[in-house]
């Protein structure tokens, strides 16, 4: 197997969709993927394909004819179209955020942002996708200054030509508002944006932001309704489910009162918390959920996580 591994890697590499950029002239270059690493962690390089220069402001392509090597250069500004497959590092960064390793995620996402810095708005540029991951990481770090700086960086490149970028900027502004505690405004703005936006990911984010503000305003029923829309309508957006489930559980807790005792809302809240711990055990929210769970349930959840037999905890729905 050891001898086969590199061959398999190459085969796998060959099977992956290629990265192609199109220049103003109409010329199309295949580009080496700087994020695709071999077994030793080094970028996989195909000599026939172009590669980024060290400062990421140019693409270089070498062609060899006999003993003559010709190097062609193109400025990144000349790129008008990018075709780039999904970048694994962004998924890793998302997972890191989910686990609460926001600083590491931020570091990783920066490596993805850098090569595309000059082509942020070019159609197909992975920069926008990476930017939203960065936004998530900054949000998790609770760093208002970093958020403000990144937002102004985003705004400086927004000329309205990229709808997705414009959406993300609005989202980031909303996050800022929520941080400032302007919850009523967040709710109103989120409502407006929800009716304008259509991407499942963005909508899930907006609902979570709105839910959090409703929770802060102690509008528990509305918060529950908002948070639960995420698992109900955007259930495929797994990365947002932990926040939504946690928010819903908190909302149920808020709704609990002697008048609603027959609805057993405390138990409904605990069910969501248990479900969160069982389904997303390594998420930051699972840790918070465990802290919110009654002692016996928390101990059962911890035992279940460590593979020991559990007692006293109800199975998640």
């Amino acid at each position, binding site marked *: 197997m050891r001898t086969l591994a590199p061959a398999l890697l190459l085969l796998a590499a060959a099977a992956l969709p290629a990265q192609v950029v199109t220049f103003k002239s109409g010329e199309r270059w295949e580009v080496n993927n700087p994020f695709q690493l071999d077994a030793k962690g080094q970028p996989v390089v195909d000599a026939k394909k172009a590669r980024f220069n060290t400062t990421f402001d140019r693409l270089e392509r070498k062609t060899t004819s006999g003993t003559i090597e010709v190097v062609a250069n193109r400025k990144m500004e000349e790129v008008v179209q990018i075709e780039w497959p999904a970048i694994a590092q962004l998924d890793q960064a998302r997972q890191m955020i989910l686990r609460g390793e926001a600083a590491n995620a931020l570091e990783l996402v920066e490596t993805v942002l850098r090569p595309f810095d000059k082509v942020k708005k070019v159609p197909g540029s992975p920069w926008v996708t990476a930017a939203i991951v960065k936004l998530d990481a900054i949000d998790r770090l609770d760093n208002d200054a970093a958020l403000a700086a990144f937002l102004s960086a985003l705004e400086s490149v927004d000329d309205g030509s990229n709808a997705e970028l414009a959406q993300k900027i609005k989202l980031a502004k909303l996050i800022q508002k929520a941080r400032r505690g302007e919850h009523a405004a967040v709710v109103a703005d989120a409502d407006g944006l929800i009716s304008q936006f259509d991407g499942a990911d963005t909508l899930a984010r907006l609902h979570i932001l709105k839910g959090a503000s409703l929770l802060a305003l102690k509008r528990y029923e509305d918060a529950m309704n908002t948070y639960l829309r995420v698992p109900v*309508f955007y259930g495929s957006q797994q990365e947002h489910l932990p926040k939504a489930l946690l928010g819903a559980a908190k909302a149920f807790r808020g709704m609990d009162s002697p008048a609603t005792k027959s609805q057993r809302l405390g138990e409904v809240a605990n069910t969501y918390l248990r479900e969160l711990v069982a389904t997303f055990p390594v998420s930051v929210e699972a840790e918070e959920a465990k802290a919110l769970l009654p002692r016996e349930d928390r101990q059962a959840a911890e035992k279940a996580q460590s593979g020991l037999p559990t007692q006293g905890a109800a199975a998640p729905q």
Partner: protein
Amino acid sequence: MARTASRSYRLAHAALLSVLVALAALPASSPGQAAKPAPAKEEESPTQRLWNEAETALGKKQYKAALDLFKKLEGESDKAGLPEMAKAAIAFRQATCLYLMAGQSKKTEDWAKVEEALKGFLAKYPRGTETLLDPSNNMRGVVRLSLIEVYANLSKWDAALADLEALRRPSPEIRAEDRVLAFVLTAKVLEEKAKGQSEPELKLALNQAMNLLKQVTAAGIGTSESREAANKLVEVYTKLGMAKEAEQLRAEIEAKGGGSPAEMVRANVQRLEIGDARFQAAEEASDGKARETLYRQALASYQGTLRRAALARALGQAVESKQAEVDQLNRLYAKPDDNQKALIDKAKEEVDSFKKIQAEFTANKDYDAVIAYRIGLCLLELGRPWEAFVAFRDIFQNNPGFEKVSGAYYYYIDALRRIGRNDEAQKVSRDFLQKYPDSPEVAPIAVGLGEICMEQEEYDKAIEQFRWAKANVRNLDPQAQQEIDFGIVRALFSNVDWAKARAALDEFLAKHPKSPARESALYMHGLTWFFEGRYRETKASLEKYMAEFPNGQYQADVLYRQGIVALNVQGPDEAIAIAKRWLDKHGKSKAEAIVAQVPELHVLIGDAHTKKAELLGRKAGEAEYKARVTAAPGPKAQHMKAKAEAEAAKEEQVKASIEAYLVAVRAARSNPQVLDFAIGEVNKLLTGRGEQRRLREIYQELYDWDPKAPKALSYLYEVIKATEKMGDGAEFRARTEAAQSRFGDLLAAARRKVDTLERAGKPNTPELTQAKAEVAKLSDDLAKDLDAVEADRQKSIQAARQEALGILGAALKSSLNDRRQEGAERLVAFLAEKLARRIKRVRPGQEPAPDAYTLKKAEADLEATMGVTESSGSLIAQARLYYGKGTLALLARDPARAESMWRRIADLYKAEELSPGILGTVGDYLASKQDPKAEAYFAYIAEHHRSSEYADFGFAGLAEVRLAQGKAKEALAIADEATAMGITLSKEKDLRFTRARALVELGQFDEAKKELTYISGVREWRGETTSGCLYHLALIEEKQGRMQEAVVLHQRNILAWKKHERWVARSYLRAGELLAKLGQRDAARATYQEMLTKDRVKDTPEAQEARSRLTRI
């Protein structure tokens, strides 16, 4: 549950598919679409002109005109000497026109004309149009495929399948793409042919179609034709319930597809169909786990479907981008040649087709609602009613015009009921009935309206709801009307409104003589008499039921009722006979209703024996009376004998009665009403007979059924009561009576002797002295005997008390370790109360007697009874021990000891380790000492025990803590939340007072004044808080610059609430300060001086300040 997709959804769905089929299938199968324009010539001949005119008409969709022109051209073709390929092209175009016309008219005769034309083309032109219309397509394949479609439209399945078989064979004449489409068409034809046939036949056809499509997709789905085949295969998989395969293939198509709007829409429709297939499979699955998995999968399919906005945006973008392509081509080729023109036309056609899809999609307003509806159903089935509730609400908010909105309401109401929101369910039901009076769900919702109340046993409300439905809901079908009428009857009946229920039953039986509820109605009719105690009418009514329904479902109950009637009319023996007959006939049944009735029969037997005992008791009484009034010894003895016999027989009947009631109690676990009655009878009888041990045994049995049940505590109290009474047993009374009787005669004789001697006038004789000594000795002996009995009795009582404590301790032990058992604190308090009663109180500073029962001993007993020590057992058990000791100390009037217990709890346990009761009690103590830990305790209650009976402790305490921290805004928010959530309970006064003070702090004086005035006005709250209110009212005046008014209020407080130094001291201080500010220095001095003379106030911190001020004035 019957669930169907909305009609508009289906129509929209069908419309989308037809567009897709047209897009994908027509280029190959319709002759018209595949043709390219004829090459232009430099000089236009008449035939060329005619051709061009015909082509233009065809392009403008003027098919009839085009057909006429092509026919004219055909007539001139020989004269013009046109080559074969041109004649073939003309024939092809004519067939095209006919095909398109038939497509519009959909008339069989038109399709027959197309068939003739296509067949003619194939027969006459073996080389087809050669290269004239398309260099690589002579159109024969297209025509053959079109012919098959025509066959399909004419339902000539066999002809279609025969032709398709030939087309599927490899042949140089048939292009590869056409062969692929032949497979697709075959699949379609097979499916169409099987429509309307039996399920196995349809399944067979689908399997054949699947195999064919698998052949053609096996080589990959790289071309649009093979993707079309794959799409068809997804449909077939879905119809065959192979959702997994369908899902996988759909994902593959999506990956390989070009992302065109058509593909996007189709992929979405497929997702919905796959979801439907999974939902259907889930509905049919018998295994619970498999059902759940299938519902989850269906849910995932629906959730993966793009929502309307996303799809609309994608479609809009596709149209825009295609339009941009057209514009660019127009700019590039200002004077296009034929090829360029063809390119532009193709792009334009694509724009049109995209727009058509967009228009179809825009027209389908229900798209999102359809998805939400399906998601809601899946969630309901998956037991997630809260999420289903959210899904259905989305429909009402965003798609109120959804065609299936009534169905959505129906399930929404179901979700509301499942989450326990019955009032809201009723409100929604009413709104629905008024808003959608013609919907098919009107009947179940109207009936459900009352049923919700029936479930909650709110019968008056149920009647109101049923009547409302009857009066306000139009278009109720007769069955629903009948259900509602019967609902009213049931509600009146359940409301024990017998006369009204009977009247309603009479009306119901007359109005609905053939109702399926007739049997129940007749039976209930009998019962209305029965429950009124009118047994003769009951007998007649139940006999009517028996005659009409000899094998009816209420036979058992009717027989039981007849037994009761017999008890009251024919006599107890007949009742016992009927009860025994009932037990023989039904006693072994496992039916729930019968099992629940078994104890009632035993109660009947018990009642019958009791009645017999009463009769015998009366007989014994009469005999005794006769014996008393009879002087002759013979007859007197006879009467006495009769009395003894009657009493003996009565005793037997009482015993039998007790036995029957005990059996009833033991059988009544599922019948609480009978249980209550029977245990009541047992209690009465056994207590009267002093049989405490038996009583304790039966109560212990009841307690052991479920120690956590709401009634368990009352059973436990009875156990303890009986145990304690057991100590004072009947044997002590008997022993006392025996001793008294034994000494009674002797003492009487001795006293008589003394009397006689004294009356004889010999006062100091030795005889008299001896007689008197004899009386004294007998008295002493009697006293000694009685003392011995009493000592034994006391010993027995003590032992019984100890035993009772043991029982209480055992009960406590079972709930002691469960933090969430709120009843445990009540038991601990009960135990503490019992122990506290025994404590011998002594004055402060005095030492109790060495053998006295002290608080220390009581604590030791508490520890022993609870079976836990301060260092053993679970954390909550230990905490409960401290709680018990604290409560004990409070009851023994030792607050310092109580405080030390609360302090230990606070020092040793985290909030999460304690129960809400302890958290509340200790939290209050900590707050009174300004201990910061109070905050954690209160916060934990507010977070985790919001529906507990101690929730108010959390909110009130937390608000107070926040206020003390200077966070008035937060305090106000907490108090407001508690009020909004109805968590004020026993702490309403505190919450309001905190709220008022927070409002003062925040400068909201009007609102604060209102609140303070309200609190002061509540008579039950008068006391320290009233004094606090006055102080704060004064503060409001002061803050608003009305110093004099403030002083008056402070003075009022000082005068009216002297006892409450907390606020009075402050009032003194503020009054003094204000008077000084007003320049009334003498008055200020007098105020401070007066303050320092008051015992309650003079040692307060405020008094210290007053002293210091006095020196400064």
